[in-house]
Each structure stands twice: as structure tokens, then as C-alpha cells.
């Protein structure tokens, strides 16, 4: 049985070219801070990757701070302020929410979009709103929010981890002060990410020591990972047109789900979304059952986000959108990507239809 992987928002398959680049990176010996030729070669690889990552989001290479992943990038951004003082949306990833204590929360409308009217009069410290939500794919009005914060003199951070590569992300146009990105959501290796910061950034590092990343993030640079990140950035930029096909597949999938059960709810379906993400509820069937049944049929999807999927808790994202417990607990996330095919969509629909039929039959029997 060949497997159908439709969990790109958890992690994306690594591009073949990235694997080759990582392989070269592992074979190169040299610490990027060493002054001898092996060190200089390593430094060159890091800086070349930095240019590629910067180019993907239209930033300058000097604005890219490499980190050990998206979580670290988000923490680096959030921990710049007194943790009580930040304002965030309630649908942020845990790596933005958890560093905070009792920071203010914005409201989210039922379509999954942050309500601009909920911005408090009093703002201080930092505002953080993600560019696109990892569970629903709903795109947030970050440019407008950033402009509003700029007028009020408040710093703005956006977690763009799910958005980059799937929609056009232009750092300069967004006008934010900090933006987090991660390699493994782009088909790069796990264990590397970046925080993009504006030229005035003078933040306090989380990791102190050898002075790497211009004193902003200590620790020997993960050469192979960073090189792989660079190649992945280049590839998603080159393959950006593929997202139009992904959107068509996604629409086909949603159409198929509704054809099986017209009562299926697509969360955030009325808002602008990432082209690859479907968050849907099959009324009456809990998410865990759906995920495991599809897994048995060789289709990999998830219930909510991967990090929290080990725990059986209702999605904080769907709750914030006003969903009741029952609808939220039956929500699954199907996320497509660069390598998805119409075959994948068919298999997913078939498996889901089988489950739907099975779960409906006992009730029919009982009625007979």
C-alpha cells in the first residue's frame, strides 16, 4: 500500500534537492566561526543560504537570524517584552501563547479572521498575530494590523511559519518588525528556522555565548540544516505556481466532502485561506476516529496541530471561532502540498466516504 501524505502543515516531505544539499552540508567539515579554509567554506555556505531565505520573503540577508526552528523564533520574538504586556490573537500557535502570562487577547470572528475592532485603545509592548493559521489556514489582516501598530508606536510580530511558500509573503510590504519562519514546513529539514527582524532590532538573545548570528543567537551554526533551508526556500519560490494546482485539488477535496455529507462544515471556509488547508467537521464522528480510520486506509491527516495532537483537548483555535465542543471535537485537518496529486485527493475521499457510511449504518440498523 502506498501512503497518501496529506499532513503538510505538520511537516512537509523534504525535497530531493534539499536532501542532496543536506548531504553535502554533512560532508563538509568546518565550524563557520573558524578562520581556516574549512571554516571559511562553512561560513560561505551559511551566508549563501541566508541570501536565499531572505529572497524568499523579500528581506535583506542581514535581517535573517537563524534559529533552531519556528518555536525558538517565536519565543525569541515574544520574549523581547515584559511578558504581561503583549497583545495576541487567541488562535496563535502555542509557541506564541505559552511564553505569555496574562497578555491581552484579540477577538476572532466566526470566519476565523482576527477582528480589527477588538484592538484595545491601550496597547503597549508588542502585538503578535500570525499570517495564516496552522489549523484552518485562514489568512489574517497582518498588513493592516502592522500599520495600526506602527501608528501607535507598538512593535508587531507575525508568525508566518504556515504562510511562507503557500501564499506570497513580502516582508517589506507587510511592514512588521519581526517575522518567524521554519524550514520543515517548506520541505526543508527539521531543526532550523529563522526570525526576520527589522534593521532597528536590538533584542535580547535567548541563547547567549559564542556570539554567533551577530550576537543575536549563540550556538554553532547548523550548516547542513541551514544549507537545506536555503535550498528549500529557493525551491518553494521556484515552484510557487504549483500552489494554484494545490488550490484546485483542495477545492476538489472540499467539494467531494460536501458531496458525501452536505452537513460537513468547512471551518474558515468563508475567509481568505491558504490554498492547501482544509479544516472540516464530520458531524457526530470524533476527530480521533477519523484520523485513525484514514490512517488504516493509508491516508495521513491530523486532528488539529501536530504538537498538541498527542493530547485529547479541543482546538483552542476552533473554540476562539465560537465553535461548540461537539463541532470542534469532530474537526480534522487535511493539508496538501507541492507533491499532492488528484489521486491523493481521491484516496482521501474514498477512505472518508467508507468511514461515513460505516458510522451511519448502525443507526440505520437500530431504526429498522
Amino acid at each position, binding site marked *: 500500500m502506498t501512503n497518501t501524505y496529506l499532513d503538510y502543515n*505538520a511537516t512537509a516531505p523534504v525535497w530531493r534537492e*534539499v536532501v542532496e544539499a543536506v548531504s553535502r552540508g554533512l560532508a563538509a567539515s568546518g565550524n563557520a566561526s*573558524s578562520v581556516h579554509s574549512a571554516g571559511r567554506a562553512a561560513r560561505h555556505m551559511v551566508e549563501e543560504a541566508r541570501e536565499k531565505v531572505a529572497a524568499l520573503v523579500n528581506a535583506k540577508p542581514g535581517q535573517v537570524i537563524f534559529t*533552531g526552528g519556528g518555536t525558538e523564533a517565536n519565543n525569541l520574538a515574544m520574549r523581547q517584552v515584559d511578558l504581561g504586556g503583549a497583545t495576541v490573537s487567541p488562535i496563535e500557535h*502555542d509557541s506564541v501563547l*505559552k511564553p505569555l502570562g496574562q497578555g491581552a487577547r484579540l477577538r476572532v470572528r466566526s470566519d476565523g479572521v482576527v477582528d480589527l475592532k477588538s484592538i484595545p485603545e491601550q496597547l503597549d509592548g508588542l502585538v503578535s498575530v500570525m499570517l495564516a493559521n496552522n489549523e484552518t489556514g485562514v489568512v489574517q489582516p497582518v498588513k493592516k494590523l502592522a500599520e495600526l501598530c506602527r501608528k501607535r508606536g507598538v512593535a508587531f510580530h507575525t508568525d508566518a511559519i504556515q504562510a511562507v511558500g503557500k501564499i506570497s509573503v513580502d516582508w517589506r510590504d507587510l511592514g512588521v518588525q519581526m517575522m518567524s519562519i521554519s524550514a520543515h514546513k517548506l520541505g526543508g529539514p527539521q531543526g532550523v528556522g529563522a526570525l526576520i527582524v527589522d534593521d532597528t532590532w536590538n533584542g535580547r538573545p535567548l541563547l547567549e*555565548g559564542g556570539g554567533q548570528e551577530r550576537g543575536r543567537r549563540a*550556538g554553532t551554526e547548523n550548516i547542513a540544516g541551514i544549507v537545506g533551508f536555503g535550498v528549500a526556500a529557493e525551491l518553494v519560490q521556484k515552484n510557487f505556481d504549483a500552489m494554484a494546482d494545490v488550490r484546485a485539488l483542495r477545492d476538489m477535496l472540499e467539494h467531494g466532502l460536501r458531496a458525501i455529507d452536505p452537513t460537513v462544515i468547512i471551518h474558515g471556509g468563508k475567509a481568505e485561506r491558504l490554498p492547501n488547508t482544509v479544516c472540516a467537521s464530520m458531524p457526530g464522528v470524533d476527530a480521533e476516529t477519523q*484520523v485513525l480510520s484514514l490512517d488504516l486506509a493509508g491516508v495521513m491527516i491530523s486532528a488539529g496541530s501536530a*504538537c498538541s495532537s498527542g493530547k485529547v483537548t479541543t482546538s483552542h483555535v476552533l473554540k476562539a471561532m465560537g465553535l461548540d465542543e461537539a463541532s470542534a471535537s469532530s474537526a480534522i485537518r487535511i493539508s496538501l502540498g507541492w507533491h499532492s496529486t488528484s489521486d491523493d485527493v481521491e484516496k482521501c475521499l474514498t477512505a472518508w466516504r467508507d468511514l461515513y457510511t460505516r458510522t451511519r449504518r448502525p443507526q440505520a440498523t437500530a431504526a429498522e
Partner: protein
Amino acid sequence: MDQRKKPIYLDCHATTPVDPRVAEAMMPYFTEKFGNPHSSGHLYGWEVAEAVEIAREQVAALINAEPEEILFTSGATEANNIAIKGVARFYKKHRNHLVTAVSEHMCVLDSCFQLEREGFDVTYLRVGTDGLIDLNELEAAVTEQTILVSIMTVQNEIGTIQPMAEIGAICRERKVFLHTDAAQAVGKMPVDVKQMKIDLLSLTAHKIFGPMGIGALYVGKKPRVRLEPIFSGGGQEQGLRSGTLAPALCVGLGEALKLAGEDMIEDAARLRTLRDKMWQRLNGTVPGLVLNGSMTDRVAVNLNFSVVGADAESLMAALPGLAVSSGSACSSASEESSHVLKAIGLSSSLAEASLRIGLGRFTTADEVEMATDQLISAIKTVRGGRREIAAAE
């Protein structure tokens, strides 16, 4: 680059080449096994989660810890930051003092400086010319306010091995936690957290023929050490270190430590002989060399010496066929001379005339022989050049 013309790599304290066996073990986790180890709903998640746990067992095994006492981090710098800042901040309501040594790695010292800004007191122990701390001074430094003692197992510039078992005994008796930065020790010499009574230990893969970007922090459960995380989020690694784990990197670390465990004793004996021969020949041929640190309490793969009447920058420039360093890699880009060499009492001029040699698993006797030739000739050239300049002036 032409492989034959590649410089001889004797900078294994900065980083080591990845063992091909390690790279091979990692590759499937970039290709078919690419899942997110925290995806609990499907096979792609399960298979990599299992690989991560095997790696955790391999890490634990080498230092005689339990797998649940191992947290994966992005490297030793992160492990050291979490250990020192994390433990201090967790216990700050009750106590406010830490003890470390002046010769620690910058990431330990910088973490301590940050804690001082947060209101903690830190005692920085002196070290002797041999690089060793004085155990009596350690005993005297520990007070009722002390939370943590942090002493590195092996010094990264001069290779000094601290008596961890004795330090551990003192700390356990005084009921303070002991952290050790063992980045340069694990895989090169036996390290046993139970026998040495170590409560927290940082290690990294890329110093022991594994990949960069992965390390681990051992956090003991008996007695239980609590700490405040530096990153929070998805709650991975028992909530102490959030972030998607990189299975390929975890597997690389596990494999690297497994191999080190198998080869450590033999490798150390062979490299010690090569290192000793190198020093004997250098010291016997070239006058005016000063060994930095002790030859007895020294890790087998390290050599560090200063060249009277020369400077490291000119020496390095005269050694194009050799990859060695002056001081540590992290600080080598900066112009300042080594805080470690100053700590063992070197003058600025001698500290700026030092070379650090780090041998490794793939270093051959031939390479050491050729490197020694090059060193002898480079020292003569640099000193000769200096005399000419002096004569001309």
C-alpha cells in the same frame, strides 16, 4: 577543491567531520521517514517518534543516565543556557547564588552574566596554571544561598579534565546541583553521571562526529532537578524544551554517541600517543614553546601551546596546509585574546601566540607527522621574519 590539497584537519575541538556511518543512519529521516514525531495520528509520526526514542536511549546509555532524563536541544550552547538560566530562575524564590569557573565556555559565562543582571550572585572560581579549579575554593564558595555549581568536564581550549567525581561529591554533600558542560568530554572519555554525581550535563553531536544543530541536556531525576524552560510552546520534551524535534538530527546524535562508546577507549589511546609524539618532537626541535595547561589532566586529543616570539595570526597564515585554531572557534573571529589562557596566567603576548590542536577519529599518524613538519617550518619562518623586521628598523 582537490581532496589531496585539502588542509590537514586538526581542529576537532571546533567541530568534527560527520562520520559516514552517522550520515548514512540519518539519511532515511530526510527521505522516506520525514514525518513530524509529534504527529500522533499516523504512521509517519509513529515511525520517527520511535527512532527519536531509540536515539534518546543511546544518549542515556553513554553517560549512564535514564532515557527520560535526556532532553534534545539544538546543541550544547542551548543545553548550557537552559541548564544554568533554567535552574537558577526556577529556584530564585529560595536561593540566589551560583558558582562557576573563569575558564568556562562563553555560553556558560554569558548565561551567568545575564543572571547577574537579573539579580543573582555568581562566584567565578580561579583556575591554576594547569587549568584546574581548587576544590577547597569550591567548598568555600558554596553557601546556603547556592543553587547550582557549573564546571566543565573538559576545557575546550586547553583540554583540562576537571575532577568531576570529587566536585560531584562536594556538591551532593552540600545539597547544591552540579551542572557540567561536557561538550568536549562525552565520547572522548568515560563520563558517568551516577558515579560522578552530576545533576545536569550538556553535550553536543558535532564535536563527536555527529551533525551540527543537535545536542542534549541530561536533567537528573534522582535527586530531581526542576527548571524553567527558555522556549515554551507545544510542550515537547516534557514541557522543558518546546519545538518540533528533528528526527534525522536525533538519530545522528544517537548513532554518533553509540559509535563513540564502541571506539572511545581505543581511539583515545591511539590519539594520545600521536599527540604526545607531536609535542615531544615539537618541543625537542623548536626552542621557546610553552605548553598551556597540564599534560596529565588533559583530554587525549588536545594540544595547546604558545610560541615565544611569534603571533598566532602570522603562524596561521604560514600554515595554509593545516586547519588548526588559536583559541576557540566562537571567539576566533573576534580580536580579543582567549579568556582561558589569561585565566591560567598567560601574558597577553603569549596568549596571542597560542595554537590549539584537536585530533580526532580520522586523524592518521601520517597526518600528524606532516602537520608537525609544517608547524616546525612555520614557526621558523615567522620568527625569522620577525628578526628581519627588527634588524631593518
